[in-house]
């Protein structure tokens, strides 16, 4: 076969195989050059910024840049060495440097992430650094007993290199004990990983509610005559096109204490004027508003799958004696699985990363993981924010990969 192909030639005498390969390579290049400008744009304005941010989660020079003497001592002495007079002398000299460069706060903050309450140790000691006299060990312990805490020395050893995994340790609600082993932090201090899990649970609840609400509606739209279905479709598409902030505002207006729903309930006498229900600025409010915002993302993929399911299948099942429930369970439902998969994954992905609605109507207990990232951004804890953002990104990308595997990105449709 290949022999025949290699013997064939084009009009100008070149082997056909080579000419075809050249032509195909050219077509490939042409297609790629059309995509190239956009790819470059996305890489520069989108992928690079995210990559840079990820780097911040493992790079923090807040401590390392002001401790040249300590870094030397840590290099000379292996891990586990009990700090001696030389170590304290190095520390004293670095504290002096911190005082001159006014970096004690930054250095203290970096250690504070790992051992809480240590920021003041640095600022306090740096303030008195000029008066320190040998023997330094005694002098420093005189300022604060905490200087002999092995956890502080372990933290300083790790932080003397700008590259660190400390922020991931914190993000997973772990800490290092005096021996340097990873242990879980106290029950009441487990914030981050707990919220991470909670975010996925809330997203799952929202997805489930969306599926329950969207399924009958999509079915109705898919089985109605086209003219009626198009008319009803507007009721799904209008929220989809309406500004997110408008929809969030509407829910505040509807659900708040003096809002429309409470007023109706009071007017109807169902609840007393003093018994108004708290439906917003808590987790309930977040879930209601997010279900409303994400519902069209569930209806649309379900609808596009249900529309092409031939009604004759269910009729056939009925004519063969199946009950309506059996027909639904064994004939109709399996055919809607691609739509369910697409809708569920899309809504789940969007819900996990939601920020605006929880921030506006979430109150104290309705906050999601994105809000925690934003919290650390406003506190200028860049590395911590970056580590949390990376955790969130990994979760979303795994789901995105799953979506691409199971459904295919090119199946994504809008309206």
């Amino acid at each position, binding site marked *: 076969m290949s022999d025949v192909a290699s013997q064939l030639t084009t009009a100008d005498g070149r082997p056909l195989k080579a000419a075809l390969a050249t032509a195909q390579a050219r077509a490939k290049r042409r297609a790629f050059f059309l995509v190239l400008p956009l790819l470059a*744009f996305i890489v520069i304005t*989108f992928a690079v910024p995210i990559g*840079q941010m990820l780097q911040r989660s493992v790079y923090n020079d807040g401590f390392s840049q002001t401790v040249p003497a300590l870094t030397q001592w840590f290099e000379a002495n292996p891990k586990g060495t009990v700090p001696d007079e030389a170590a304290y002398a190095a520390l004293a000299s670095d504290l002096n440097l911190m005082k001159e460069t006014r970096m004690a706060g930054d250095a203290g903050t970096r250690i504070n992430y790992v051992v809480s309450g240590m920021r003041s140790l640095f600022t306090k000691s740096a303030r008195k650094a000029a008066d320190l006299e040998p023997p330094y060990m005694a002098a420093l312990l005189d300022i604060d007993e905490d200087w002999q805490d092995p956890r502080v020395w372990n933290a300083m050893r790790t932080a003397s290199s700008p590259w660190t995994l400390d922020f991931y340790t914190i993000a997973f609600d772990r800490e290092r004990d005096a021996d340097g082993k990873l242990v879980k932090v106290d029950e009441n201090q487990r914030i981050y990983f707990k919220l991470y899990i909670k975010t996925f649970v809330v997203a799952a609840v929202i997805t489930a509610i969306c599926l329950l609400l969207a399924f009958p509606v999509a079915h109705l739209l898919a*089985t109605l005559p086209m003219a009626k279905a198009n008319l009803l479709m507007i009721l799904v598409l209008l929220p989809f096109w309406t500004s997110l902030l408008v929809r969030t505002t509407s829910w505040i207006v509807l659900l708040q204490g003096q809002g*429309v729903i409470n007023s109706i309930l009071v007017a109807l006498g169902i609840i007393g004027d003093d018994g108004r229900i708290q439906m917003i600025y808590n987790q309930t409010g977040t879930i209601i508003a997010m279900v409303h915002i994400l519902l069209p993302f569930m209806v649309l993929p379900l609808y596009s799958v249900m529309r092409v399911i031939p009604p004759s299948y269910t009729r056939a099942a009925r004519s063969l004696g199946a009950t309506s429930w059996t027909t639904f369970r064994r004939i109709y439902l399996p055919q809607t699985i691609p739509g369910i998969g697409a809708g569920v994954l899309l809504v789940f992905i969007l819900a996990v990363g939601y920020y605006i609605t929880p921030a506006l109507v979430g109150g104290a207990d309705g906050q999601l993981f994105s809000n925690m990232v934003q919290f650390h*951004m406003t506190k200028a804890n860049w590395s911590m924010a970056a580590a949390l953002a990376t955790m*969130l990104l990994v979760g979303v990308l795994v789901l995105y990969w799953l979506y691409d595997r199971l459904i295919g990105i090119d199946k994504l449709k809008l309206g």
Partner: protein
Amino acid sequence: MALPTYASPLERAWHATYLVICVLVFVFLISPILVIVPLSFNAEPYFTYTERMLSFDAEGYSMRWYDSLLTTGMQNSEAVRDGAWWSDLWHNADWVKAAKNSVIIGFWATILSTVLGTLAALGLSRPEMPWRRTIMAILISPMIVPIIIVATGMFFFYSNPCAIFGFECGRLTSTYTGVVLAHAALGIPFVIITVTATLSGFDQSLIRAAASLGANPRRTFFKVVMPLILPGVISGGLFAFVTSFDEVVAVLFIAGPDQQTIPREMWSGIREQISPAILAVATILVVISIALLTVVEILRRRSERLRGVAAH
């Protein structure tokens, strides 16, 4: 959907329940949007219907919140409404400034994402496109990656865009360029999805026909391809515009005081003191989204007719 004649009473009951459920879901979807429209004409600063509103007393309604939208931030809002007043309004009113910013940023972000996105969609829909799946996944990712991560990354990057090369070269934060670039990146997935969907029904033999009749690739594109995919391109552009017009988180992180947009003003309005003026803005935005939805639906039908897809 009518029930077959052989349906049992139980099935009839279930069918009625099913219809009720559907109606309730539709009410859930649409009522939050409709409920705020009359409230924006409330004469009182309340977020609920007053008795006078319910009895359709004209006294219960007013345009005061729309008026306050115009006058907030003006230097001399009490003056006679002459030319100077309107000029004051145009230059100083907070919401007018925000609207101008939203339109300017939205316009450039839309141009950028539509041009780049359409080119890329043309490449992606060619059968010989290499690594299509991976590239498609990268190009759609701005829609999938949580906005807070995008905004955080862009905040660091735009503070010093040349940091990867190790030197300083100004900043893009607090500039129009920065916000436009961010919004263009966020709008691109919508253009890609819409235009590739249009191209999926495109008859490639039309291109070969044009070529065999002597048209060069450029002429083929403008005379044959472009008119056929134009409805899809415009819908994609509208999606990109709406994305930018509705975007608040990137603006919060990147924009300075000069680039405040409508969503940004709404954000601070909702967070700080929610006043019915917000409802007036919301009502205007609902009207805009109804207009956009209508245009997109008309375009979609036109596109389907052009491409010969059976009308749905």
